[in-house]
């Protein structure tokens, strides 16, 4: 399934760019104007709006009940420790350092000593982990890796999915294609179609799975539904690529949000699945957004394969950025290395964050007018977002008439909601839905 390694890499195909070597052209004149990022555009418009009641539901970053970004207190404590003891800033390894890698492995694959299958895989040196430039960087690295070494370029992604998934995969030379996931008219998962659309695919594709808190819908599969999907994955010999950007945001407990990983580990341990990969980020669950702290892990077939894959990852990463940034990863290391105080503190802080999101979610639900519109899906959704089902026109009316800013797909980042604005928001939505 994997192509032999080429010593020199072939030029990777670039989508949608017309090469021109004509000397007549102005040097940079054939560079197209790329469309601006939608979410950032919304943030900019929000900043300019002078309405004191304005609400920003665009950005996928946590805000507290006062609408402010937070620093997890455990993170600040870790930084205090670092400030006192850190004496240098030398490069970490291309794939990060062993301690960070081991923390990720133990935290996620071994579920901190609660996953015997994962423990076995770690023990057998069958998991290769590399620190990356947060979740986006890990998606990019695995996409480039698969483009180089996996026989199949097709990658199946849920419809809808995080917009950057498609952009990253395409740019790395993969061919993203949607599988059915959500039915907007029913505001619900479309599980029958999901299965059908996977069944109809050729064998051997890559399949992207959101581990939890699906972005943008907030709608996750149940354990039973995962089992059914995993059956299809097995029979179709798909390569599972799991993206986990919101670990902990479904239940409040990061150890409970990795049911899919545990199932995958079990399949690998039972030799029902050969290999899979996981992209993971501490951006949201440790609030390390801007520090770019995350990882890619590849579960391999053997320790020999691990060695080869690790060397290929190094070769791949070196020309992109040489080595990952260490401030965020040192915070992670400091927290995890203090199992008795900082680690439990972080876990309870994360739990509190998720509780607030859940409270906001229910308050919004309570205040919504259910006479003409069924809002029950709100209560089924998990994580930072509610996928309202509002149309683009309704979202634009919310923006123009009520200074409520959200993306036009109707996704609301609910941490922008708090005690002070939830009623105003619900009222605005009610008015837009009614008319």
């Amino acid at each position, binding site marked *: 399934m*994997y192509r032999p*390694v080429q010593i*020199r*890499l072939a*030029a*990777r195909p*670039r989508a949608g*760019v017309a*090469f021109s*070597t004509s*000397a007549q052209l102005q*040097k*940079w*004149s*054939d*560079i*197209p104007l*790329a469309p*601006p*990022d939608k979410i*950032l555009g919304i943030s900019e418009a929000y900043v300019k709006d002078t309405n004191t009641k304005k609400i920003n539901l665009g950005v996928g970053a946590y805000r507290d009940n006062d609408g402010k970004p937070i*620093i997890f207190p455990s993170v600040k404590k870790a930084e*205090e420790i670092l400030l006192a003891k850190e*004496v*240098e*800033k030398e*490069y970490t390894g291309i794939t990060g350092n062993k301690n960070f890698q081991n923390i990720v492995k133990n935290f996620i694959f071994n579920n901190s000593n609660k996953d015997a299958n994962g423990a076995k895989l770690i023990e057998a040196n069958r998991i290769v982990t590399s620190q990356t*430039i*947060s979740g*986006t960087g890990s998606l*990019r690295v695995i996409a480039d890796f698969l483009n180089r070494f996996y026989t199949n370029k097709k990658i199946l992604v849920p419809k809808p999915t995080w917009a*950057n998934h498609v*952009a*990253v995969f395409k740019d*790395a030379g993969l061919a993203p294609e949607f599988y059915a996931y959500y039915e907007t008219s029913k505001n619900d998962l479309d599980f029958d179609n999901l299965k059908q659309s996977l069944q109809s695919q050729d064998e051997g594709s890559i399949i992207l799975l959101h581990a939890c808190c699906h972005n943008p819908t907030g709608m996750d599969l149940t354990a039973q539904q995962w089992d059914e999907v995993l059956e299809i994955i097995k029979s179709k010999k798909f390569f599972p690529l799991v993206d986990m950007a919101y670990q902990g945001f479904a239940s409040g407990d990061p150890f409970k949000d990795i049911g899919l990983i545990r199932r995958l580990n079990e399949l690998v341990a039972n030799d029902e699945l050969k290999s899979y990969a996981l992209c993971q980020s501490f951006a949201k669950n440790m*609030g390390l957004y*801007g*520090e*770019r702290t995350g990882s890619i892990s590849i579960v*391999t*077939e*053997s320790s*020999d*394969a691990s*060695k*080869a894959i690790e*060397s*290929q990852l*190094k*070769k791949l990463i*070196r*020309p*992109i*950025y*040489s*080595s990952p*940034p*260490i*401030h*965020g990863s040192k915070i992670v290391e400091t927290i995890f290395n203090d199992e008795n105080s900082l680690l439990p503190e972080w876990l309870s802080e994360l739990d509190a964050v998720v509780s607030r999101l859940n409270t906001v979610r229910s308050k919004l639900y309570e205040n919504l007018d259910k006479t003409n519109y069924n809002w029950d899906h709100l209560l089924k959704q998990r994580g930072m977002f509610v996928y309202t089902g509002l149309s683009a026109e309704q979202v634009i009316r919310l923006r123009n008439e009520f200074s409520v800013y959200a993306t036009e797909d109707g996704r609301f980042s609910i941490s922008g909601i708090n005690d002070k604005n939830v009623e105003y928001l619900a009222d605005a939505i009610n008015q837009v839905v009614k008319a």
Partner: protein
Amino acid sequence: MSIYSKLQIEPADPIIKVMVRSAQDSSPDKVDVTIGVYKDEDGSSLTFPVVKKAKEILHTNDPGHSYTTMQGIPEFNKGARDVVFGEYGKNDNIVTIQTISGTGAIYMATNFLTEAGWKDYYVGNPAWSNYYQTIDFAGGKAHTYTHYDEKAQKIDFDSLLEALNTAPANSIFLLQTCCHNPTGADFSKDQWKTIGELMKKNKLIPILDTAYQGFATGDKYEDAWPVRYFYELNIDFLVCQSFSKNLGLYGERTGALHVVVQDRNLLPNVTSTLLALFRKICSFAPAWGARIAAEVFKSEELTKEWDQNVADVTKRLRTIREKVHQKFVELKTPGDWSPVLVQTGLFWYSGLTEDHIEQLAVHHHVYATTYGRINVSGLNDANIDYFCRAVDTVVRGSAN
């Protein structure tokens, strides 16, 4: 058959092998001059005093860890531009994007030029080895010329001139502004002027890689002269900037790419292309190092202190070079050792052969890169004498 059976194990960077060997050697005599990181007089890593202060300030006025902007932290970008462009930094035709340090800047520069349709690169050998991999990755084609004449132990300027005169229009030249890695051999101002004029005349695209600004003369402004000179030529060019070395921020991955654009109508195209590329690589550059750098840029006092820190480091490097040279004179070591004085920056391209280097490791606990590059900062009063004697011994071919 395993799905991974066709994967080979890639050879590690040769420098890694040397580092591993060095790590296993516990001799008190050990001298390790391999890696490109500045070491202090006592052999330890250095946190620049100014960075220490900036850390305290940042910790007290904690901005948190929110997402920054895709183009980077504005105060960092502005300050970084001023550092490398001097008085031209405030001009409106330079697009700056924060990158994953210097490596990430080179990655962005090459991929950006791929988008623009240009892919023929000219690289002078020996070069920083990562150039070739990055050019490959961007889908470019690398052509080579000789930067350094190993026999004559000086720049082979004719080779560059020939490349500049024969390269087709829109070819890209990847040049280092100062403290050339690995040779330490930089162009004179007159040579830069010749290069600049030819690049303009022959419509070539310069990428100026500046990873050691300040370490040549001790004065960052002076070291950035080639960048200002190119700016004055009114040509399109790119500058890749790293704060790994001159702020000692290595692992924080702090750097920037600057694109100088003559046709101002194209500024939005350039910016949007860079942002779109970056979003597909990692979305945002890491915040912390850039915030530290920005603290230094925006304070006049810290900036002064930074200037002094860089001057101090450079002075120490110069002193070591003089001591090494002096020692070889004393020992009457066969050969011409003047290049150690002429070369600039962290590295001395010694001309020692692979065999010499091997003997140094095996018999003398001295570890250097296989191609003879020596990190000058790894030497100090406690080991210079030992080091020079060891070199003298292997050069005389009398290793025991």
